[in-house]
């Protein structure tokens, strides 16, 4: 490596560095920094203001509740499906593996529409039956949890699967042959080795879940004080010319998102210059 970099004229390397830094600076760093500045314009007043509005506080609480529920679901589902995909062979396994990725490339608006078509209370496929049973999904928290879970679904799976493939089955087989049951093997052998992958997956899912906007906008009905989430508050405030409030709410969301990403990027050991996929 050192050898090669010495051969390359430093000028070219500096030019590349400069291009990359300028590109990311103009596209990401500077704009994100400005949001912090706009939010903190005039001290903490903007943030104090939004924390005194009952509707906004409700939205923040609701967002946290919905996000944590969907992250919990996705963690259990994600670890389970990863184990099934890596440790077992069954018909349709490859199809399932490809389909699990699907939510990554589906538009949030399509997600919202799809859920309304099935769970809508008026003429959804299952909605009217569920409402007769007393479960309202659309325009209520269950639908919001589903939308959020949908969009973040592949994130845990995609962190855990490569690690499971990497560690192989030797230790698990040894534990098994020593008489450990499936649950004990999972808890004592498998879980400790996929621990960090799960943490990264959870951090990414949390960021994605807290920030979901399009799908939630459709399924929630966006009623202030009831089904309006933090991201919807940002839009509402901006459109109502409350820029301070919009930036303050956005700033709070940004803080959490960046914290999640920092867990993934900075805590993870540097693997020869690249994060393992």
């Amino acid at each position, binding site marked *: 490596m050192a050898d*090669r*970099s010495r051969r390359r004229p430093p000028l*070219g390397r500096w030019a*590349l*560095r400069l291009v*990359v830094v300028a*590109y*990311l600076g103009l*596209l*990401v760093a500077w*704009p*994100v920094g*400005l949001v912090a500045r*706009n939010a903190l314009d005039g001290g903490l007043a903007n943030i104090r203001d939004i924390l005194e509005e009952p509707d906004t506080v409700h939205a923040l609480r609701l967002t946290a509740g919905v996000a944590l529920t969907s992250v919990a679901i996705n963690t259990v589902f994600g670890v*389970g499906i990863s*184990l*099934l995909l*890596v440790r*077992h*062979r*069954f018909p349709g396994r490859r199809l*399932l593996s490809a389909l699990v990725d*699907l939510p990554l*490339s*589906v*538009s949030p*608006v*399509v997600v919202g*529409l*799809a*859920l309304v*078509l*099935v769970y809508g209370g008026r003429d959804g496929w299952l909605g009217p039956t569920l409402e007769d049973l007393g479960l309202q999904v659309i325009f209520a928290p269950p639908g919001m949890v589903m939308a959020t879970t*949908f969009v973040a679904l*592949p994130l845990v799976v995609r962190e855990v*699967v*490569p690690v499971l*493939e*990497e560690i192989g*089955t030797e230790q698990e087989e040894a534990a098994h042959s020593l008489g450990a049951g499936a649950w004990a093997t999972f808890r004592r052998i498998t879980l400790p080795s996929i621990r960090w992958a799960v943490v990264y997956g959870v951090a*990414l899912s949390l*960021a*994605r879940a807290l*920030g979901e*906007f*399009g799908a939630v906008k459709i399924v929630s009905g966006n009623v202030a004080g009831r089904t309006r989430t933090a*991201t919807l508050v940002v839009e509402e405030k*901006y459109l109502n010319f409350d820029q301070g409030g919009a930036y303050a709410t*956005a700033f709070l*969301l940004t803080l959490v*998102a960046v914290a999640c*990403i*920092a867990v993934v*990027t*900075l805590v993870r050991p*540097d*693997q020869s210059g*690249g994060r*393992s*996929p």
Partner: protein
Amino acid sequence: MTAAALDGAGPATSARRPRHPGGLTPASGLGLGVALVWFSLLVLLPLAAVAATTAEGGWGGFWRAVTNEQTAAAIRLTVTQALLVTAVDVVMGTLVAWVLVRDSFPGKRLLELLIDIPFALPTIVAGLVLLSLYGPDGPLGVDVTNRRPAVFLALLFVTTPFVVRTVQPVLAELDPEAEEAAASLGAGRLTIFRRIVLPAITPAIAAGAALAFARGMGEYGSLVLLSGNLPFRTEVASVRILASIESDDLPAAASVATVLLVVSLAVIAAIDLLQRRMVRRG
């Protein structure tokens, strides 16, 4: 994150696949059943409902919905901008990945953090973020709001990580011997990149590009504040879907959604193929 869609992208992982994966035990069979029911209720059934609602209106209904002048303009704009953004992502993403893998300088980890921010940031906040620099009160004096560059900029922001994160691990795994041999035979740096490095990372670039294109086609949140959603000018496909939902025209919404869904499925299929190709190479 998204790059992880290419599990097994690194040649090393495929070699270490467990040799004797088991069939299903009763417990894991039950687990699979539960997982499949949940996955069907959450993902498959709703997406099928989109296709079924479109089919109910027949081919004529579908065609009328997507060739409606305003909708067709929105779809055209979305495809054009998504393609443009993907092209920029391919070039800049590869460049960023190259610098992150082959170069080292203080603050490199900060760049790593920056690349993931667009992925983690709520999309509506991404819109606000871009407004603060490229909006009416931005310090640069550039105002893209309510113009087509707004669409381009928003898509570029949200798709930044995709190509970087798919190319980076493949580049890191690349054996330097071939490059060194070529260099010792007198090949220039550009030739080495074109003949040795580029062929090896092309599937990864293509996979990242596919993800970026899909994301661009469906993007909504980062655009709403920035583009003004002006019909025939800055309105994109997802905004049209939302407008149809709000005017209670679900069949029309489903028709446009079906177009987007076909793109998503094509992307997933393409990535699956590329993934197999990369594993074979390894």
